[in-house]
């Protein structure tokens, strides 16, 4: 029996939860080693050996140590290609390219405004940091423009990269979960017919429900 892989980081971190969602989709057993970021554990020498930029998550299995959530997800899909959801990263080069395109769109166009909103609206209050109203408004506008593009795309295809749920959709789960369930900006998603339909479908997956449970329990 294989040793469970190790994931370092708190489950409430969006990047950590991206990796956990992937592990659940692929039925890969893991051990979650929580890192106390409020105590600065991620900036201490022992953690910096695993992740020299002092960010979460970090990942380890018997062969390798990796960081960057989207790189970890790709590795998991490659290494465990025959486990769990076999089509998660595509089963042919063209499908894979389309998935990569939308993972990049998530990383470059969706993530910046959505993660700023997540920080300002969900985390800053908990950390007693003053919210920046101008930044919130600017990023809400940016995110709205991005979601208009998604609305059109999701009118053409069931999921971002095509007809099947993929790593590209999965990559969007963490930030969207916070915005829809933890802030008053959920309407950005739910007021758009196709985006709303897509969100309902991807967030109802068993794998994501397990991640949300983990986050609640932490």
């Amino acid at each position, binding site marked *: 029996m294989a040793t469970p892989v190790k994931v370092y980081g708190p489950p409430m971190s969006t990047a950590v939860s991206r990796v956990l969602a992937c592990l659940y989709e692929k039925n890969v057993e893991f051990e979650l080693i929580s890192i106390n970021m409020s105590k600065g554990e991620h900036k201490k020498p022992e953690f910096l050996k695993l992740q020299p930029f002092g960010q979460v998550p970090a990942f380890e299995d018997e062969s390798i140590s990796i960081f960057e959530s989207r790189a970890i997800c790709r590795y998991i899909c*490659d290494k465990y290609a025959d486990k769990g959801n076999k089509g998660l990263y595509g089963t042919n080069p063209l499908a894979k*390219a389309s998935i990569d*395109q939308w993972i990049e769109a998530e990383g*470059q*166009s969706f993530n910046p405004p959505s993660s700023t909103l997540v920080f300002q609206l969900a985390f800053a209050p908990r950390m007693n940091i003053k919210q920046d109203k101008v930044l919130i408004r600017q990023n809400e506008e940016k995110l709205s423009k991005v979601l208009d593009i998604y609305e059109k795309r999701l009118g053409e295809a069931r999921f971002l990269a095509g007809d099947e749920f993929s790593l590209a959709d999965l990559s969007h789960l963490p930030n969207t979960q916070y915005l829809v369930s933890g802030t008053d900006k959920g309407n950005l998603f739910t007021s758009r017919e196709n985006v709303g339909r897509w969100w309902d479908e991807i967030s109802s997956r068993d794998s994501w429900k397990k991640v949300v449970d983990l986050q609640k329990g932490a």
Partner: protein
Amino acid sequence: MAVKVYGTVESACTQRVIACLLEMGVDFELVHVDLDAGEHKRPEFLVRQPFGQVPVIEDGDFRLYESRAIVRYYVAKYADRVPSLMGNNLEERAMVDQWLEVEAHNFNDLIFTLVLQLVILPRMGEPGDLALAHSCEQKLEKVLDVYEQRLSKCNYLAGDSFTLADLSHLPGIRYLMNEANMGHLITERKNVNGWWQDISNRPSWKKLMKLAGY
């Protein structure tokens, strides 16, 4: 049939794709998109790339955008040509992916903001935010310290061979060294500087520099 690359030879993201195609010996045709005239925001272009950005490629009926997705696709497609650009096995591939993501999320944003504030806005007659530029410079110092440490252990970011991870940095560092006038960030670090000298002297990059008229 040559791959059509819609973009401009000065755009960092278009350069990333062209550098890769040149490395792989893939025939391509650069179709110039007039960014100054707003061509990338017009309906005809948005059909190709709905975010209104360059580059986008057309390879027969196949269309793809996002430069880092494009380079991954071609490196996999022509893996027999330059097999090590994406690593030779699963673990090497993971390292290439890891440093590609570092470039995309820890490096690119800082360079982009620097160039926007110090070069692009002033060119458009608007004041750049110098405090923001300075803050980016400080953050970049810390990021490059990590690169310095990494490159003391191996010749290239993902290991001992040149890969997509190194290639992905070429356009941004070129901007840093030239228009943004921040070359000291590179030259002050022995290993980073040695690495930059090596990767920027590759024939494919030099060919691109000539194409771009630099």
